[in-house]
């Protein structure tokens, strides 16, 4: 019957692996003392310390992670990964509504732009395409549709990465422990453990931090500008005192101001969602986690080759 | 007496080997031959002059050390003399071992490694990369053309018209993307090809003799060691890496088979939308497979070659520029 190993319980596997390493090294130490091989004994003693350090490290890590999980679930009722995923889904849903908003505007403008008025009964009269000049506007709308869809795809990728970390990345801790036990692969082992801790613990923590910024900042974002452009569109805003016709833009054209303010009402929150929520905060999370991994790698005794990653950015 | 017998056989072995080490006066040079100037007065003359000057210098310094009773100068001279001896021994062993290694690898590779490398790279550039690029370009133009066809039902003023194959324009954009990628890949392969012919021309015929000369001078010892290592690495290890690449690629070509496009596409309703779409997509699918075969050979394997050669050069430089001071 094949031994069924379910790789999800990474904690149990790590402890099993570390104790295996520990027994191996103590076996070597016994042989060394038994057969009076001073060199082997010396080497085994040193390895014993390393195995002890690994054991201590494993225990410390597991307790640290479980405390973080319990504190988070007590305070917020969900573990960090679920909070992170819910937050990413709410942001994607927001982007979805903007997407449909842009498409709705685009439908009308494309319709007007393409309308050709024919007034040429039996080849007399004239033809004209009155609103072909709206082409730059539809080009900008098409650009924003692409940007919104791209940001949504990016956020979906992020949530996939979060669940990848939660369910699969935990496997590299036991591997890191195993590699850390052998002298020649200690560098790689230490690096793996630092990467695990960085991404498994701190990365979701920063996402939870973002979700708490989200509610506060979005309220502030929607408070300020919308009131401004909505009222000015209808000619009530403060700018409209001197020139009532030109509240959104200093050009006296009511229809132009009306549709410009509608467009601005949509582009302002989209810029906030795409620039801050889809680009700036995820970049901030990754940068902070990489700084932490760099520090952790020094502590775990192996200088991880993060310089490569920084080159990547 | 037996020792002399053994020594003579070894000496014979060297001279026999030595004959085909030196390149003939006029090209085409056989593989791994050191430039003939080595014998015909070029390098030998210079290295012997260098030798004499150094010995002269040492003797002057020795005389001075005796006059001014400078003990440390004496040690320095002894050390330098020893180094020159080491250099000469090193050079002779190098010349002998070089030809042995070279012949072994030539027989191993079946032909001059440079020739195999050039054929491999040329076949990669001309047969695979560039004709794939032209195919991609033709497909792209065809797709743009088909995308422009318009069906009009009834007069424009009172009917409906649409471009049934407008979707092909996006497929054309995919083809252009691949075209740009292949252009980049062919450039990198050509650079490697040119690099190889430069190495073949300069590594053994210029760099190695200079390295040997530098190895003799006391101050340029480290640089000399490095130059010799560099020429060895570039002339022997680098082309062999290409031979290895060729072997690896030949070994895996048979092992990989990909299902036809239809297997992926349950939603093969594409034909419903535009009849030309399946043809274009099958063309795109085959080109994507060819590109996937090309990417490892154009990006991963050359990087591996570089890593192996650099490791050899670093290690050989360290070994060659040792001054074996601690050995005596």
């Amino acid at each position, binding site marked *: 019957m094949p031994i069924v190993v379910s790789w999800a319980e990474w904690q149990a596997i790590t402890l099993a692996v570390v104790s295996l390493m520990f027994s191996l090294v103590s076996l070597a130490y016994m042989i060394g003392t038994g057969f009076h091989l001073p060199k082997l004994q010396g080497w085994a003693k040193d390895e014993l310390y390393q195995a002890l350090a690994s054991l201590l490290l494993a225990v410390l890590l597991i307790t640290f992670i479980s405390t973080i999980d319990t504190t988070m679930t007590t*305070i917020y009722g969900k573990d960090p990964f679920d909070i992170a995923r819910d937050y990413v889904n709410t942001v994607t849903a927001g982007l979805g509504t903007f997407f449909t908003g842009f498409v709705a505007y685009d439908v009308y403008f494309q319709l007007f732009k393409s309308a*050709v008025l024919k007034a*040429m009964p039996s*080849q*007399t*009269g*004239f*033809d*004209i*395409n*009155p*609103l*072909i*000049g*709206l*082409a*730059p*506007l539809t*080009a*900008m709308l098409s650009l924003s549709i692409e940007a919104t869809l791209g940001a949504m795809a990016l956020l979906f990728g992020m949530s996939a990465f979060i669940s990848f970390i939660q369910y699969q990345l935990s496997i590299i801790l036991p591997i890191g422990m195993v590699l850390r036990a052998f002298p020649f692969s200690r560098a790689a082992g230490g690096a793996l453990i630092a990467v695990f801790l960085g991404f498994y613990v*701190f990365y979701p923590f920063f996402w939870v*931090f973002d979700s*708490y910024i989200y509610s*506060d*900042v979005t309220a*502030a*974002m929607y408070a*300020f*500008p919308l009131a401004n452009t909505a009222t000015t569109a209808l000619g009530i805003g403060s*700018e409209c005192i*001197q*020139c009532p016709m*030109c*509240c*959104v*833009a*200093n*050009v006296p*054209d009511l229809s*132009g*101001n009306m549709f*410009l303010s509608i467009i*601005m009402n949509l*582009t*302002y929150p989209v*810029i*906030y969602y795409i*620039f*801050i929520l889809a680009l700036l905060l995820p970049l901030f999370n990754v*940068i*902070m986690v*990489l*700084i*932490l991994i*760099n*520090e*952790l790698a020094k502590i775990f005794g192996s200088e991880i080759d993060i310089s490569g990653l*920084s*080159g990547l*950015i | 007496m037996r020792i002399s017998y053994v020594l003579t056989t070894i000496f014979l072995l060297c001279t026999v080997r030595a004959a085909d080490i030196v390149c003939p006066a006029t090209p085409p040079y056989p593989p791994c031959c050191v430039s003939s100037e080595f014998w015909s007065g070029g390098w030998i003359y210079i290295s012997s002059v260098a030798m004499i000057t150094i010995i002269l210098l040492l003797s002057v310094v020795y005389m001075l050390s005796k006059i001014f009773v400078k003990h440390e100068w004496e040690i320095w001279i002894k050390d330098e003399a020893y180094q020159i001896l080491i250099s000469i021994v090193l050079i002779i062993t190098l010349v002998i071992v070089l030809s042995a290694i070279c012949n072994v690898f030539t027989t191993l590779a079946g032909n001059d490694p440079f020739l195999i490398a050039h054929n491999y790279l040329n076949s990669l550039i001309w047969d695979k990369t560039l004709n794939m690029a032209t195919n991609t370009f033709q497909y792209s133009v065809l797709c743009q053309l088909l995308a422009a066809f318009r069906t009009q039902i009834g007069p424009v003023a009172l009917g409906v018209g649409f471009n049934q194959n407008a979707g092909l324009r996006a497929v054309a954009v995919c083809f252009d993307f691949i075209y740009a990628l292949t252009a980049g890949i062919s450039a990198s392969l050509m650079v490697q090809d040119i690099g190889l012919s430069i190495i073949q021309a300069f590594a053994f015929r210029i760099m190695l003799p200079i390295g040997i000369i530098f190895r003799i001078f006391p101050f340029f010892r480290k640089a000399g060691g490095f130059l010799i290592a560099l020429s060895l690495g570039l002339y022997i290890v680098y082309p062999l890496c290409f031979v290895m690449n060729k072997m690896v690629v030949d070994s895996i070509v048979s092992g990989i088979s990909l299902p036809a496009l239809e297997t992926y596409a349950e939603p093969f309703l594409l034909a419903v939308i535009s009849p030309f779409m399946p043809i274009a997509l099958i063309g795109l699918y085959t080109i994507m497979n060819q590109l996937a075969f090309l990417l490892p050979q154009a990006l991963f394997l050359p990087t591996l070659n570089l890593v192996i050669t650099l490791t050899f050069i670093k290690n050989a430089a360290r070994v060659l520029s040792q001054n074996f001071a601690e050995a005596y």
Partner: protein
Amino acid sequence: MLINGGFGMLLSIALSDISGGIFLGGWETAALTALMISFGIIAIAFAIGIGFGYRELEEWAKNEMYEIFISGLIVGTLIALINIIFGISINLAGGNPFSIALSKVSSMIVETNGQFLTLLLYNIYIGALSTLKFAFFIPIPILPPPLPTVIVIRIGSYVTPWAGLSSLMMGLDAIFNVLGLMIAALLVEQVLLTFIQVAFLKYFLPLGILMRTFPITRVAGGTLIAIAIGAYIVYPLAIIYGWNVYNQFKATSTPGNPGNAMEHMFFAPISWNIHDTTNVLASILKNFIIISIMFFLSAVITLSSIRSLAGALGGDPDLFGLARLI
């Protein structure tokens, strides 16, 4: 307590910007718990060090104690320092720098919208004109009316007099991209201003202090504190400086005619003066240069001050390659 009391003294910064962060159950409690925990760890380490005579552990504990003391000192002086600097920046900007910066940026947006609208109306006008096509014919009835007409021959012609304007429209598309870029840059500035005002002191600063107390996250914590303070104080001032240069040098002065191309809205013969377009172009580009230079300059000034602060607070001065990124 000291920390809470210190905050009371912060009159100049709006209280809403400072406290009320509900992350981890309010940040003051989080900072205190963090200090407690790190004190606990150091005490245990110190005890083990002495107990087992483990020299380095003792040394490490002493060093950590010193670091915690430094963190406490930094937090203490930081609050006083922010208050003084923010006071200076208030009388420099004449009012809360954030609200002034926001109103200035929105006035810039209004003027750019004006230029966009003018150019769009002009584009619609020449677009429509370029597609206007006339057709007319002369009927030649064979045997003219008094006589019975058998067949009627018609000879006519189609004319699109202003078809040549299509090349001008192609040129204007490029200008609309420039205008789109200007509006996007201004919106990004406005969004960043609100984001920094709301989130930096209330969330990022406490997180930085929290992380600075633990040894492994000390460098990251230091960087975070530097980012929070540097951006909060320097960024709005840089925007206001940008606006002053913009206001002094901008093209649009009176509302309604930003070098208005609409002045020539008449049914001109086919001759068309290119200056109508180049005048509009000139006013748009004048603003575009100022806005892009100021956008770039404010980024450089803010980043440079964050880098010098990060160096002082023990953070990672090159922001882990981020400085190289921008």
